[in-house]
């Protein structure tokens, strides 16, 4: 199982720009590296990430083999209303991880 660490400020003022951090455990095997017997290791990467704020997409990105293992993303969004931020990573071999965090907007 892949562990993820997400950081969302628990409280924010309406209209404030908040910083969000998302770190996930993944080998991000490029598909270009041979193993010790010279055979290429099959590609195994996360291909996309998105963040939904009360169901609305506020950040999304695609990922490629050149990204480091255990990708760490930092982005910002506008605190509009209290609710839930959902994080979704998808990738090769059916990789799919979901996490969520609450935010209280005053």
């Amino acid at each position, binding site marked *: 199982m892949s*562990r*993820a*660490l*997400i*950081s969302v400020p628990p409280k924010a003022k309406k209209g404030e720009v908040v910083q969000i*951090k998302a*770190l*996930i*455990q993944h*080998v*991000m095997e490029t598909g270009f590296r041979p193993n010790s017997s010279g055979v290429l290791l099959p590609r195994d990467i996360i291909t996309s990430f998105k963040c939904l704020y009360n169901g609305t997409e506020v950040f999304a990105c695609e990922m490629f083999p050149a990204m*480091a*293992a*255990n990708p*760490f993303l930092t982005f910002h969004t506008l605190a509009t209303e209290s609710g839930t931020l959902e994080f979704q990573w998808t990738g090769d071999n059916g990789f799919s991880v979901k996490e969520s965090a609450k935010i209280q907007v005053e």
Partner: protein
Amino acid sequence: MRRRPRGFLAALVVAATAGAALAQAPPGERRTGYELLGPTTKAMQDDDMANPGMLWVLDGEALWARPAGSAGKACAGCHGDAAESMKGVAARYPAFDDKAGRPIDLEQRINQCRVDRQEAPALARESRELNALTVFIARQSRSLPIEDVVAKDERLKPFLEAGKALFERRQGQLNLSCAQCHEELWDKHLAGNTISQAHPTGYPQYRLEWQTLGSLQRRLRNCLIGLRAETYAYGAPEYVDLALYLMWRARGLPIEAPAVRP
């Protein structure tokens, strides 16, 4: 990004220890690898939400609570809350083990409980599980000073001496000793790396070059490969003696596991 004129002090140190084989940095001159990091790597280590080593700490926490082996017992079943029972433990390993008749490292100690108490097969060196349990335990000692275990247990002395001899012996096709780099040339550069004083304060650690978390033995292996010397098998007594000597050199410095290094 620290640049400090060391010439004068270094000359003093050399003068003061003339006759000694190599000048060991005196307590005030000791620097952990952390202090030599650039600001971005420091920031990564300092923030538990950005430090990738924390992902393994989470793994270790889950393993700590999970029953295993034919005894069907979890580490937590006997040791309870690791924040209490494992506090300070990593700061005093390698420790003398009666059964082995020699020092063992934290990984070997964990495997003893795996085999004897949980009645489960030993975890392989560098396996994700063993590194996770080790880093979870080491994390409970964060910011605690490394103990002078040799002062408290005379039986460790010959192993400390053996570790020191390994550290000062020239070896490999490059014919260099550990001490030449880590005592005489620290703060200088080797390819893209700043050479540190080789203090084992942050293990298991996340190394960006490895793209993963690894043990102290993996690091020592890397240095031996760099010297084009023969490596020992994982778990070999030579690594434990070296680790004991490194911990003794670093006594008083704070544990920072999981450290992040370039």
